[in-house]
């Protein structure tokens, strides 16, 4: 097991390097010099050159990359071109914001999706199943910017019961309830997709499981419905569920860009958009790194969890 983890991590390193190299190239390929943004209309050549050297972009790409890598090893992600703040100082707050939204979204999604998916599979092709399936298709099909704005319009502007955006009431005394209120709408918008997606997977795998011989055995034993369902059925659905979770989480960590935009959620996604617009390379690289690491980490975690939920899998 330990050996397996070490091996996996070692495999991960070249992948990570490749991701960062690709990302560095792509980011640097983008036309337009960051200095175009950070100088005023009447700036002189000399000022531009001075800024370029101050930002460290006066050197050739490979050297820039290796400098970045060297800094990374020392835990330094550079400073933001836009705000000149060390990226490492800003990153945690952004991650916390995104993770908060992600956690509430995924919690709500999965708590709803897993039972709904199971019910759907159990009543396969019945009215309830068609209803759940239909709504979940809707959830996948509705663009979240549209859904989000509609919710803002209804709940924030017309009814005035929920805030339009942000993470908390600024200058208010904050507090849990206030934060929860801010979480509701973006959570609904994101959960619409993640919940629907999960429902589909849970439903599909439960349908397969219901057809399994061991489920027949459990029935033939005369066990109670709930025990058959949870004790025998759902147990075997964890592997696909974990697979979905392990792709959902990095997807969200990579930024729920549109939703964060709409709800002014100060997370990774919003940061990324402004960083792209500002050609803020260090920030982009950091976000990319976080996203890539999360993909790889959750891949690994998923593999390890498989072994926990399925005794047949051993490393």
């Amino acid at each position, binding site marked *: 097991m330990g050996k397996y983890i070490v091996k996996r991590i070692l495999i991960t390193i070249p992948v990570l390097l490749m991701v960062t190299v690709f990302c560095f190239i792509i980011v640097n390929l*983008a*036309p*337009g*010099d960051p200095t*175009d943004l*950070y*100088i*005023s*209309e*009447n*700036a*002189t*050549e*000399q*000022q531009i050159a*001075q*800024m370029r050297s*101050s930002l460290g972009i006066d050197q050739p790409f490979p050297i820039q990359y290796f400098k970045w890598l060297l800094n990374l090893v020392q835990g330094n992600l550079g400073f933001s071109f*836009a*705000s*000149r*703040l060390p990226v490492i100082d*800003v990153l945690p*707050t952004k991650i*916390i*914001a995104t993770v*908060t939204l992600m*956690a*509430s979204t995924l*919690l709500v999604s999965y708590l709803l999706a897993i039972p709904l998916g199971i019910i759907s599979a159990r009543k396969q092709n019945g009215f309830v199943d068609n209803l759940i399936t239909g709504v979940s298709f809707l959830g996948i099909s509705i663009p979240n910017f549209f859904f989000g704005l509609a919710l*803002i319009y209804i709940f*924030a502007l017309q009814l005035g019961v929920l805030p*339009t*955006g*942000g*993470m*908390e*009431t*600024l*200058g*208010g*005394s*904050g*507090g*849990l*309830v206030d*934060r929860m*209120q801010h979480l509701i709408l973006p959570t609904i918008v994101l959960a619409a997709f993640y919940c629907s997606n999960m429902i589909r997977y849970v439903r599909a795998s439960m349908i397969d499981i219901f057809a399994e011989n061991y489920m027949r055995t459990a029935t033939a034993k005369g066990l109670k419905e709930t025990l058959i369902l*949870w*004790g025998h059925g*759902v147990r075997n659905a964890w592997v696909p569920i974990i697979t979905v979770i392990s792709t959902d989480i990095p997807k969200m960590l990579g930024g729920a860009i549109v939703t964060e935009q*709409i709800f*002014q959620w*100060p997370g990774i996604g*919003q*940061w990324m958009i*402004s960083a792209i*617009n*500002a*050609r803020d390379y260090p920030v982009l690289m950091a976000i990319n790194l976080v996203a890539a690491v999360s993909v790889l980490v959750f891949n690994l975690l998923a593999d390890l969890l498989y072994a926990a939920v399925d005794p047949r899998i051993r490393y």
Partner: protein
Amino acid sequence: MASFKKITLLIMIMFGMVFFLVACGGGEGTETTGDNDGDPSGDITSDGEEEDTLYIGLTNAPGGFNPLNASDTVAQWILRMLYPTLLEQPESLVFDGNLAESFETEDNQSFTITLRPDAEWSDGEPITADDVAYTLELIANPDVETTWGVNISSLEGLQSTGKWEDGAAGVAGVEVVDEQTLILTTKTPVDPNYIKEMIGFNVYIVPKHIAEQYEPAELANSDFATTPSVSGSIYQFVQYETDAYVQLEANPTFYKGEAQLKHVYLRVVNGTSLVTELQSGGVDMAAGGGIGVVPVSEVDTLAADDNLDFESYPGFATQFMFINNEEFDADVRLAMMYAIDREAIVEQLFRGNAEVLNSTYTSASVYFDPNVEAIPHDVDRARELLEESGFDTSQEIELTVPTGNRAREQSASLIQQNLAEAGFNVTQVTFDFVTALANVREGDYQIGLIGIPLTSDPDQTYLWSQSGTTNLGRVNDERMEDLLEQGRTSTSMEERQEIYSELQEYWRDQAFSVGLYGDFQYKVQNKELNGGIKEFWGGSLHDMHEWTKD
């Protein structure tokens, strides 16, 4: 059964995690805000707390808080709340004393500045002439990254870049007389308004005792530039939550008196959210002036909102269709000018909340000459001119359109149609703003839409001179150079007005570019707010310490 317990436990852990995250989310931010953070009952915000808090909506994030190096308008605007300037400008080119009690000259070359004796930094240190001189020295120091070089370049002893000559290490044109007095000397006589705007109004005075703790070369990347600790103006910096909000609190030592609104949050939101926040009361006012822009499509909605004050004024924000002068001669350019129905753009797209840009000055500018006749929309004339020019109309012309401004994107569609009517073969190419700007800057374009924020000072050398840093049209015209030179060196406002009238006329005839429209400034704010945006946006903050909320 055991699995039930496990699942329940798992769910509880997950709930716990969410609560934890929610409770401590943005933890750094709230440390300073209040101590009842995480107190479940703390959500009831008392009215008293909100009454002395001002929420301002911004549509752009500030690029740092470096008083010496702030190219973006947002940062400049916020810095004005944090650092004193010598002068105020409540109306365009009308200057009042601020840190300076007086700012006088007799020869238009030597300016005597007397500072208020009572001014203090927020840490209790007095603000003296030394601070002013040190600020100017920093700007002139070649090691310091700064955007203000050009502002002070007229001073004695400085190059045209605003940096001192090699080995000079000091600004000859700055002389500290005593704690409250200093004298600035320019290389040649200048229009006092020029120096008043460029140095008096635009340059933020930095605390010498703080700034000198840093190596000049490292100032731009230091916490001096990112998290200012000492303020000399209305507010002091509390924190910046990147891309989310800037939090300020009243500076008790402010020389004009402590602000009535003790807290300020400048929230960074997108245009749509700005509207929803304004309507829901999440922000009290839009920052306006190109940094707190409500989308033009929402203007009617906002104007109709009973809770909001809505006014619009001509401003300094402009949109040009730049024409690559190297590719198109004057006739063709003029044909384009005739072809584009700018009235329609202004009337229909902006519902009148903009003005046709007849010249290179908006009506907000005192140098704007209303007598320069506008070129009307005249397709026939355009065709005629086009024919005369012998321009090959089959040639495909690319119209570069930057994204990020819906009204501009929409106007592009109209412009394309207009030009097509006149016989041009135009296709739109869209790029994100930076790319578009980069392409245009490098001359890698034919025609393109770019917005230019103008200044109250009429000098536009940077735009239309061959040596201009933002000569996007690649203008290379002797007469124009001449006029710009005259305007720049003239020392009286009347004289300058004359020169610039001529320039406007010449500019129109040559159609160096097509002025499309000048966006109106909107004042959108909660009716509860007393104060807010002024007709001259740049001077809106001069009485900010007196603003209140009902």
